[in-house]
Every structure is written in C-alpha cells, then in structure tokens.
C-alpha cells in the first residue's frame, strides 16, 4: 500500500509539472515544493508496481460499508494489461499511473467547470422571478416568457457564431486539457502591436476540429455566462418590449455584441494583452465578468431603456417619477437568493478547474463572493432605512445583487476585507444610481438593471485595479504576464489604467454597438415598443395569449 501511495505521489507530481500553462513562468511554489523532492530519492520502477495487493474478490462480495476497498490499483486503466492470453504483457506501469493522474486532474476540472456552469444556468430562474416579481401582475407571463426564451435564443446565437467569435482564438486552456482547436484569432496591427479582434474557429461547434470534449466544456460554461448578460436586458425593458423585437435583440446580443467584448477580455483579444503589449499590469483583468457579463448586460439594458422609453404613467408631465410597485416581493427576494446561490458557480467556477495551477483558491473566491453580497445587502438596507425610514425589501435585494456584481471581477484577486469594502460601496452605489437614473436621467428601469449590473459592473472592473493584492497565483501568470494581478493600493498603478481602458471600451464602444444595433432592429421590425393599448391592458394577452394569473382580478 505504501508503494502504491508513493507511485501515485510521483505520478501526480510529474503530471502537475507537465501541465503548467506554456506562457507561465514557473511559480516559486510549484518549482520546488518539498513533496516533489522526496520521491526522487526513491528509485521507483515498473517492477515496484508488480504485485501491489488488491482486495480479494470474496472480500468485495461482502460489500464495502466503510469505503476502504472501493477505488484501488485495480481501477487504474492499464494500456497493456496482463491476461490469460497475454501473459507477457507489461501490465501496470508508471506511465499508466501518470496518465491516470493526468486524466483525473482534467476530470476534476471538467466536473468543477460543468457543475459551476449548471449552477449559472439555474440563475436564469432567479432572474426570471426577480423580474416577474418587480413587474405588475398583468405583465407577469410576458416577463417570464422573455426570461424563458432568452435562454434558447441566446444559446442558438452563441452556438451558431457567438462562441467562435469569442473563444475561437483563445489558445490553450491548460485546466481543461489544452483546447487545441481554439487557436485562430483575427488580429489587426495598431501602434505597432497586434490587436486581437475576434476568434475564427468553432462555428456550430464543428468547425476546424472543435468537436472536442474540452471545447464542449468551455462552450457550456461560456454560454451560460453570455445568457446571463442577455437576461439582464429583459428587466430594464420589461412591461413594454415587443416580444418579436426582444427575440431579435437577444439574438444579436448573443451572436455579436457580447462575444466581441468577451473576446477582447477573455478570448485572447487586445484588452487581455494590454499587459504584454503595453506594460499595463496584467492587461485588462476581469476574473468572472463584472465587465464582460454584467456591464455589457447593464449597458445594453440602458440602450434598450432609452430606445423603448418609459412605461405609460411612470413620469408625470413635469417629469416627476411615480412608483410602480411590483406584484410579488416574495418572488423578488427568493429570486435574489437563487441568484446568490448561482453566483457560487459564477465566480469560483471561473477558475475553470479545481485541481492544479493555483485553483485551490476557489475557497477564497467563494468566500469573497458571499462576503461582498452580504456587505451590499447591508449597506443598501441601511442606506434606504436612513433615507426613507424603512429597510426597503427590493432595494435590499438589489444591494445583495450589486455586491455580487461588483465582486465578480475582483473575486479571484482580492482578500476578504477588500471584498467587504467593495460590496459595501456597491450597496450604496446601487441606491444612488437608481435615484439618478430615475430622477435625473428620467429613465424607467423597472428592476434596476442599469444600476445593479451596469454601474456596479463598471465599479467591479475598477475595483480590480484598486484592491488586487498580488497574492493570487493561477499557474504563475495572468494574461501572459508573470506574477500576480496587483492593484493601485498594493503598488501597481498600471493595472488600474488597464481596467479603466476596459471601462472606457464598455462605455464608448459596447454601449454604442448595442445602441446602434437595437436602433437598426427597431427600424427593421417597426419599433421595439408594444402599442400603448396593449401596454395599458397588460402584455400577457396581447403578446403571449394567456394571463399568468387567470383567476385573479387584475387592476
């Protein structure tokens, strides 16, 4: 048994060294771990592996209540097994153990990434009931249908071309076994440096060898992130968005707008390479998508809210806003809880692995996520309590979401104290922003999507440039720059510049792209807004054909 453990230790060490990211400088911790030196002193050969005892068949037949017999050397896949017909075969070798250890590492990372992706997918349910709860009962079916079909629409768009544009040139993702087919990025030269613009591999998940297990895993994970951005928009345009226009707008956002910025940030594009090309920290760093997912969704929500205009009755002729309460606050807070649960897939899952390359930091990422959410809900609740005399429930829920949005980008780079500060600021920020959007900008955002996701998404991006503490180590580098992401407060002002360039790109390019595309959709489809008569009646019957609550007497 001791020899078995020894062999596994050696095999795991060899595999972890071999699996380092190519661009990564060998991190000090991985270069000379105490455990790595020990096996070298013991010459281990294939011969040592012969005769390792396995549980007897009669013992296994009695069952294994304590788990001591299940999972042993007989479960290792042997390339050249000894059988009655092949008595001279090699049998178990060190190579078999090394291969098994490597596959186990990738299997762990596959499982981690997939389960995290499943959790993010479930966030769609959270968004659906938060938005439905914040809308009036007469629009509940319409709102739920938008949240339901944004999933399928986005998935279709992303499968056709969105994924290829985003990830087609990302290169090797070591945690998932390399993703070798995703290596074709379209670049232009600007200021003498290559600017990655979009990927060119992976259309329909069949193009140029992308029918590949590791590509499938990264597709699923990235797809649910994209869909999160899409479903943010349905909130700001709720209760007056024409269903056909919504379908077209969501398709375009999932096929083009989101993937382009995601490529620049995560797919090997020019923002990610601001560090290697222009010595700006580690390039634009967005661990789980405060910018890529939430700011893109929030700014698209702003564009749609501008284009469709406010609901009838939201503003008086003097511009004074009227409160239009949602029909079910219990939906809202339950949805916030579902979203907070899903965020544990969103942020920790963004390591794309639980084994190797510093991925044990998932514990820190998860704790940072819950702390920031808590801080956001507290600060929003106390702000509303002090300002209006009551702890407003919907804004407390939005405070939780704001804290989670803001910590999404920094979650992999900051410590718990910074997480609480980031979340606390986010909770106040969302309250101030909701007031500004409604009272100053005269924009009707029924669910606060612009403030929760847009404003706090941008705050999260900036927070990386301020609070990243230089302690994270994901394989020794980030975006091809050796060392850890370090913000202004820990000595690297250039990281903040990279983050601000990301913010500027979101405001000056992504917002415009989504704004112009939606203007075009409106022009082609005869406007984005439902007729006033339908809006007054409620969109459930005119748009969907059935009421959400047919037995209720609706006002």
């Amino acid at each position, binding site marked *: 048994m001791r020899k078995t453990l020894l062999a596994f230790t050696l095999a795991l060490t060899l595999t972890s060294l071999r699996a380092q990211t190519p661009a990564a400088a060998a991190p000090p911790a991985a270069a000379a771990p105490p455990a790595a030196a020990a096996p070298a002193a013991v010459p281990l050969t294939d011969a040592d592996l012969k005769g390792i005892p396995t549980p007897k068949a009669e013992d296994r037949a009695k069952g294994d209540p304590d788990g001591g017999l299940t999972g042993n050397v007989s479960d290792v896949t042997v390339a050249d097994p000894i059988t009655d017909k092949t008595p001279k075969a090699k049998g178990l070798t060190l190579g078999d153990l090394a291969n098994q250890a490597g596959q186990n590492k990738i299997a762990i990372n596959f499982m981690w990434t997939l389960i995290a992706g499943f959790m993010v997918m479930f966030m769609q349910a959270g968004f659906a009931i938060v938005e439905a709860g914040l809308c009036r009962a007469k629009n509940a079916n319409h709102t739920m249908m938008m949240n339901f079909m944004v999933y399928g629409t986005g998935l279709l768009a992303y499968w056709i071309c969105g994924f290829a544009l985003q990830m087609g040139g990302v290169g090797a993702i070591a945690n998932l076994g390399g993703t070798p087919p995703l290596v074709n990025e379209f670049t232009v030269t600007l200021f003498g440096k290559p600017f990655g613009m979009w990927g060119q591999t992976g259309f329909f998940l069949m193009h140029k060898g992308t029918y590949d297990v590791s590509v499938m895993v990264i597709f699923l994970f990235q797809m649910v992130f994209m869909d999160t951005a899409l479903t943010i928009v349905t909130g700001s345009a709720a209760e007056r968005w024409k269903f056909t226009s919504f379908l077209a707008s969501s398709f375009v956002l999932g096929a083009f707008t989101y993937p382009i910025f995601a490529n620049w940030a995560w797919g090997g594009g020019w923002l990610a390479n601001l560090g290697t090309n222009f010595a700006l920290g580690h390039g634009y760093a967005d661990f789980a998508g405060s910018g890529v997912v939430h700011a893109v969704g929030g700014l698209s929500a702003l564009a749609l809210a*501008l284009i469709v205009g406010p609901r009838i009755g939201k503003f*008086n002729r003097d511009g004074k806003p009227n409160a239009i309460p949602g029909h079910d606050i219990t939906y809202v807070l339950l949805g916030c809880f579902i979203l907070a649960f899903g965020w544990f897939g969103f942020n920790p899952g963004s390591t794309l692995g639980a084994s190797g390359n510093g991925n044990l930091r998932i514990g820190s990422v998860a704790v940072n996520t819950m702390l920031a959410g808590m801080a956001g809900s507290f600060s929003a609740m106390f702000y509303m309590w002090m300002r209006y005399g009551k702890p407003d429930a919907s804004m407390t829920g939005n405070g939780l979401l704001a804290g989670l949005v803001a910590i999404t980008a920094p979650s992999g780079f900051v410590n718990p104290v910074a997480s609480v500060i980031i979340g606390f600021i986010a909770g106040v920020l969302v309250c101030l922003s909701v007031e500004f959007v409604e009272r100053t900008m005269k924009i009707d955002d029924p669910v606060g999507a612009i403030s929760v996701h847009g404003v706090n998404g941008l705050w999260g991006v900036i927070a990386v440039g301020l609070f990243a503490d230089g302690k994270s180590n994901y394989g020794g580098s980030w975006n091809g720059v050796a060392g850890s992401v370090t913000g202004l407060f820990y000595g690297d002002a250039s990281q903040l*510049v990279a983050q601000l360039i990301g913010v500027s790109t979101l405001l000056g390019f992504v917002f415009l792209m989504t704004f112009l595309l939606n203007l075009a959709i409106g022009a082609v489809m005869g406007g984005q807004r439902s007729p006033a008569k339908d809006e007054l009646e409620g969109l459930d019957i005119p748009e969907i054909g059935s009421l959400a609550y047919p037995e209720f007497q609706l006002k």
Partner: protein
Amino acid sequence: MILVGILVTFLGFVISLLSLGMASGVNSRMFMVLAGIVVSLVGIVGVINKAYVNNAIWKK
C-alpha cells in the same frame, strides 16, 4: 442630436485608445483614459439621454 451623442460617446473611446500610442507613462495614460471616460459619459448622459428626454412621451 442623437447622432452627435453617438459621435461624442465614441470620441471618448478613441481618446482612451490613443493613450496607448500617444502616451508612454502611467500617469499620462491614466489622464487620457479618464478624460475619455468623462467624454463618453457626457455623450451618453448629457447628449443621447437628453435627446430622448426632450422627446419623451410623458411630455406630450
């Protein structure tokens, strides 16, 4: 008016982008990028949004 807002918003992005080629120090780049962000915000909040508010249905 909306077209002007679009141009101003995009100008902010261009200013930030130019910081990569026209400036080399961290401080000068930071200054240009912040200026670009302010210009884009003016374009969105001060021009595009104002154009929509001026023609808002609740004013009619």
